[in-house]
């Protein structure tokens, strides 16, 4: 025994360990008075129970830590630490007892003081602590990520541990596949560490020694659940504190490829003992917020920054690209298709589709470059069907009118899923331009009924109108999702002939027409051309469609427009209004 053993402790910390020569010293250092903050006036003891290690820890090894330390030796010969934990509970002298069933768990610097303070908030308090693991990936995925004790040692060195214990938050992640923030407050499956009054521990009856699988199986979850079920108890989650799991060979979480098998064995045991799923506690809980550095610090900074700098906008888009959120609709459609085929017993069609894949891939790549459609079908995922050439041209055109200070708004007539308008809006956002609007004029119901001979060229098949109809809400949702919605994004829903003549637009710097038909093109030019500022750009997307081309040629001829036309690609043209 070292330290102040003669003073009756207010708090006992019970820690179980087995073959933890590497991990236990760090855990005990993290429990020591030099590391724990706010415990100067609160006497506490630490009871380590070794569960049969070949070279068990000795009190002398930790003499320098200034701990009121006791080490017990449990010789049950069983792989489960529950007997060891109960042995420690029986030896505990504190009015409060905090259990750490896994000796590889380091507490954060304010954990003990916060636990003691939180128990004062309720007579029958159960103090829940967030459970984090060192490393940036679940330790169960270690075999894929290469995580090891050596990697962990380097991580600890990188934050100069133990200088500031709160920096462990910087190198930790959630236990399973959740970001740590999700586990921050919500009491879940188990608490490690778990603090209750001695009376409450007695009422719970300690750990159930029927749990005999490696590591105690779900014993820790079980004791937390049983305590929460006791009448009048109140779970209090510690905000700002946590335990941090070090990787070790005897950990269920670090059993690498054996993890699923371990979970299966644990579940069988739990089902046998409790005949219900091993799940977390669902009970209202309080939060005891310690306002310690993690909540003030860098954990949240990056994700809360909404500064529309070019860098942030780019990274937001990159994030969406990496998460493939843009392909959500297609994935859902594809999945629905596969499920339908499978449930109809048509796996043969799924097989057959594989041979068609290379050809389709070539067509899709072609469509990405040249734009438009694959056959008569729209691409299922893209937010624009203009293709790279026309999208790049649009970008250059918008940048040019902005750099040359051509006055006016940007407008697209015929927006489909809104991709081209998003490019316009994205450029304005990246340049922090707030005095120009982006207008989206569309029926949001697809193309109008063709006006007999006027619109029907006879050369082009009527397009798949159902594929062209995208609702205003869908377009708005895409703008929201991509982070470009603002009060400067203006919608003009309705047929061009109804909306454009009265649209509240004063000046236009860039007019992009994508209406396909003669009448749509002519309506838009007639209503808006005079609002285009000198130096402004007019882009026609569908000049390859004969009736659209006819409308453009006729309008230019009638109005005496002789500015040279530039060809963008096989269908896009543009000109600039003379200054």
């Amino acid at each position, binding site marked *: 025994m070292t330290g102040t053993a003669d003073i009756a402790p207010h708090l006992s910390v019970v820690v179980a360990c087995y073959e933890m020569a590497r991990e236990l010293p760090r855990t005990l250092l993290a429990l020591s008075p030099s590391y724990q903050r706010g415990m100067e006036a609160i006497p506490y003891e630490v009871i380590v129970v070794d569960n049969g290690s070949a070279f068990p820890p000795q009190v002398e090894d930790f003499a320098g830590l200034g701990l009121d330390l006791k080490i017990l030796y449990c010789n049950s010969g069983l792989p489960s630490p529950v007997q060891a934990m109960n042995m420690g509970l029986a030896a505990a002298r504190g009015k409060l007892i905090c259990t750490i069933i896994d000796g590889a768990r380091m507490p954060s610097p304010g954990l003990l003081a916060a636990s003691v303070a939180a128990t004062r908030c309720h007579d029958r308090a159960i103090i829940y602590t967030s459970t984090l693991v060192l490393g940036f990936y679940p330790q169960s995925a270690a075999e894929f990520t290469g995580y090891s004790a050596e990697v962990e040692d380097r991580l600890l060195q990188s934050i100069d541990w133990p200088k500031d214990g709160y920096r462990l938050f910087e190198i930790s992640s959630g236990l*399973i*596949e959740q970001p740590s923030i999700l586990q921050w407050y919500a009491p879940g499956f188990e608490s490690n560490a778990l603090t209750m009054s001695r009376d409450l521990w007695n009422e719970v009856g300690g750990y159930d020694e029927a749990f005999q699988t490696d590591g105690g199986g779900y014993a820790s979850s079980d004791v937390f659940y049983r305590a929460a079920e006791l009448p009048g108890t109140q779970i209090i989650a510690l905000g700002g504190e946590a335990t941090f799991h070090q990787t070790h060979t005897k950990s269920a979480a670090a059993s690498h490829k054996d*993890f*699923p*098998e371990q*979970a*299966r*064995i*644990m*579940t*069988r*045991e*739990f*089902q*046998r003992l409790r*005949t*219900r*799923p*091993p*799940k977390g506690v*669902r009970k209202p809980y309080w939060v005891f917020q310690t306002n310690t550095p993690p909540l003030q610090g860098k954990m949240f900074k990056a994700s809360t920054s909404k500064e529309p700098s070019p860098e942030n906008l780019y990274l937001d888009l990159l994030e969406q690209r990496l998460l493939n959120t843009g392909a959500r609709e297609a994935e859902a459609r594809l999945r629905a298709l596969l*499920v339908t085929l499978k449930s109809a017993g048509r796996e043969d069609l799924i097989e057959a589709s594989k041979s068609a894949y290379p050809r389709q891939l070539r067509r899709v790549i072609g469509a990405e470059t040249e734009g438009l459609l694959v056959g008569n079908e729209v691409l299922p995922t893209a937010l624009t069907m203009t293709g790279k050439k026309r999208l790049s041209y649009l970008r250059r055109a918008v940048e040019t009118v902005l750099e040359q200070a051509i006055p006016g708004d940007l407008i697209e007539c015929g927006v489909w899923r809104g991709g081209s308008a998003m490019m316009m809006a994205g450029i304005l956002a990246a340049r922090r331009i707030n005095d120009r609007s982006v207008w989206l004029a569309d029926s949001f119901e697809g193309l109008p009924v063709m006006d007999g001979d006027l619109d029907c060229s006879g050369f082009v098949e009527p397009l798949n109108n159902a594929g062209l109809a995208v609702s205003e809400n869908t377009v708005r949702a895409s703008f929201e999702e991509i982070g470009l919605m603002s009060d400067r994004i203006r919608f003009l829903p309705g047929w061009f002939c109804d909306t454009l003549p009265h649209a509240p637009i004063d000046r236009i710097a860039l007019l992009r027409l994508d209406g396909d038909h003669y009448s749509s093109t002519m309506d838009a030019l007639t209503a808006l051309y005079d609002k285009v500022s000198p130096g402004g750009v007019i882009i026609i997307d569908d000049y390859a469609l004969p009736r659209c081309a006819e409308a453009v040629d006729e309008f230019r001829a009638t109005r005496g427009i002789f500015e040279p036309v530039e060809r963008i690609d096989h269908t896009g043209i543009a000109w600039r209004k003379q200054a």
Partner: protein
Amino acid sequence: MTKLDADQVIAWTTKYLTDFLDLPPEAFDLDAEFAALGLDSVDSVIIGGAFEETFNCEIDATLFLRNANLRSLIDDLRQSGLVA
């Protein structure tokens, strides 16, 4: 070994999953997709363990992973001879 009764398996799995996922029983039917209900791969393994314990049998570890819904699961168990 006596074959399991399909109705019993359906009733148990429904109860287990609705308990496990905190869902109302009416949210669950033979065609409800496990993944869409929120079941992940670890959960599938856990349920497999509980299933074995309850029905005193051994099942392939991928049973709940390779079947998207209860209907498919029962068919699978029938084909492997576990369910009558």
